[in-house]
């Protein structure tokens, strides 16, 4: 853990560039420029900010676990020294997930104030539920760290680009990040189809705690879904990790 914290501290600027650049650009265009150009209404920023925070924290969690894992198991075999440590091997996997959660929290803590600064005042934004917001952040980041661990240990280095094209990109666009889930009411098929997407629960959870007066999915449903997804993906991830780690 200390090793990963040292590496993260050393590579923090690159980590931030990698994970928050895209969400911040999205905020600049859709949260600052388009409202001022009159193409979207001002209240769109209320729906956008929690969604962008959700994308940032989930992307950083999934990337921070999956990318080094692909490299470790593929070319460099760097993880070998930790697999030779006198601890149960599943703990090595759990430590990776904990680091993913930490990076997810950092991403959320950067994007929230940056988004608020760029977009200006946001109707209905409150930090009155900061504790619950942190809980949803941790739950969401943990779920996506598990997904990252699963993908990182299940796929080879040559398929990593494909992973982002066919899994991560659709997940972002159909994850109710850039529009609220209740906004899909006129398209019932989409409204229920997107429920298979874990990002939906993180984005709606963020809306529930940051902009609670806007329509959103009930917080209990969000937490319930995330707990189930976390349990399921953690089991898959640790099994896949063990299969790669022990011959």
């Amino acid at each position: 853990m200390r090793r990963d914290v040292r590496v993260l501290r050393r590579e923090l600027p690159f980590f931030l560039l990698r994970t928050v650049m895209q969400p911040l650009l999205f905020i600049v265009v859709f949260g600052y420029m388009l409202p001022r150009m009159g193409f979207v209404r001002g209240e769109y920023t209320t729906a956008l900010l929690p969604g962008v925070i959700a994308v940032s924290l989930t992307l950083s969690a999934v990337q921070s676990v999956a990318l080094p894992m692909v490299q470790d198991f593929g070319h460099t075999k760097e993880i070998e020294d930790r697999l030779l440590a006198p601890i149960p091997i599943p703990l090595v996997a759990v430590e990776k997930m904990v680091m993913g959660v930490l990076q997810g929290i950092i991403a959320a803590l950067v994007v929230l104030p940056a988004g608020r600064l760029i977009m200006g005042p946001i109707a209905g934004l409150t930090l009155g539920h900061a504790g619950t917001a942190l809980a949803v952040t941790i739950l969401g980041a943990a779920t996506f760290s598990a997904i990252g661990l699963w993908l990182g240990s299940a796929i080879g280095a040559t398929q990593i680009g494909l992973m982002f094209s066919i899994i991560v990109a659709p997940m972002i666009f159909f994850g109710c990040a850039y529009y609220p889930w209740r906004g899909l009411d006129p398209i019932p098929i989409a409204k229920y189809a997107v429920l298979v997407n874990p990002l939906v629960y993180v984005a709606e959870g963020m809306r529930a705690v940051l902009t609670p007066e806007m329509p959103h999915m009930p917080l209990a449903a969000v937490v319930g879904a995330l707990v189930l997804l976390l349990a399921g993906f953690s089991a898959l991830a640790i099994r896949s990790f063990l299969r790669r780690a022990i011959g």
Partner: protein
Amino acid sequence: MSAAIHISGLRKEYPTPGGGTVIALAGLDLDIASGELFGLLGPNGAGKSTTIGILTTRIRPTAGSAVVAGADVRRSSVAVRQRIGVVPQRANPDLSLTALENLVFHAGYFGIPRVAATARAHTLMGTLGIADKMRARVGELSGGQQQRLMIARALIHEPRVIFLDEPTVGLDPQARLGLWEILRSLHADGRTIVMTTHYMEEADQLCDRLAIIDHGALLALDTPVALKARVPGGGTLDELFISLTGRELD
């Protein structure tokens, strides 16, 4: 001398995509004494790395048992890892860290406090001739220096048994001789060392005893001198290998 490693009926099978199995180890029996420098000699695919993999808990055996430094590899894998040091076939240092950090963090995994670990790392890097690379990122080290760093990493927690998997592959002749000296010195300290190699000369020069294996089975086990004496009229380990298998090693 007591046995540092006891292997009994060790077997490893891998499934093939076609539904069949490949036998990597076909019931190996072996005892390695404490303080011995023991060599596993054989061609690529003979089962040497699989044996090392099982003894270092990175590969799960299909059948049989192996006890390393008093701990069973299957039932007490954590205890085995506490007592062994491993030098891999291809150096795999942590590229995000400096050479010194590689050692200090690795020692930390074994519960060694930072101050003690740093002191040990300084001593080891001095002994292995890489003290001047302490603050360098490991990517800046040559192949031979990285291999020395791997040896330092394997030794930093003062293990009872050291495993080296083809430690001189890819090294230039000078680095190889340097590594031989390091191994001789570790052996003189009384450590149990198990190494795999497919270089006959290396096995002949370094090892107290050798196990020649092929197709996952033990073909011969003895001191290099006794093994060479098996060749009619005396000969080399190469000639012995040809007489045992009908083919050359490389």
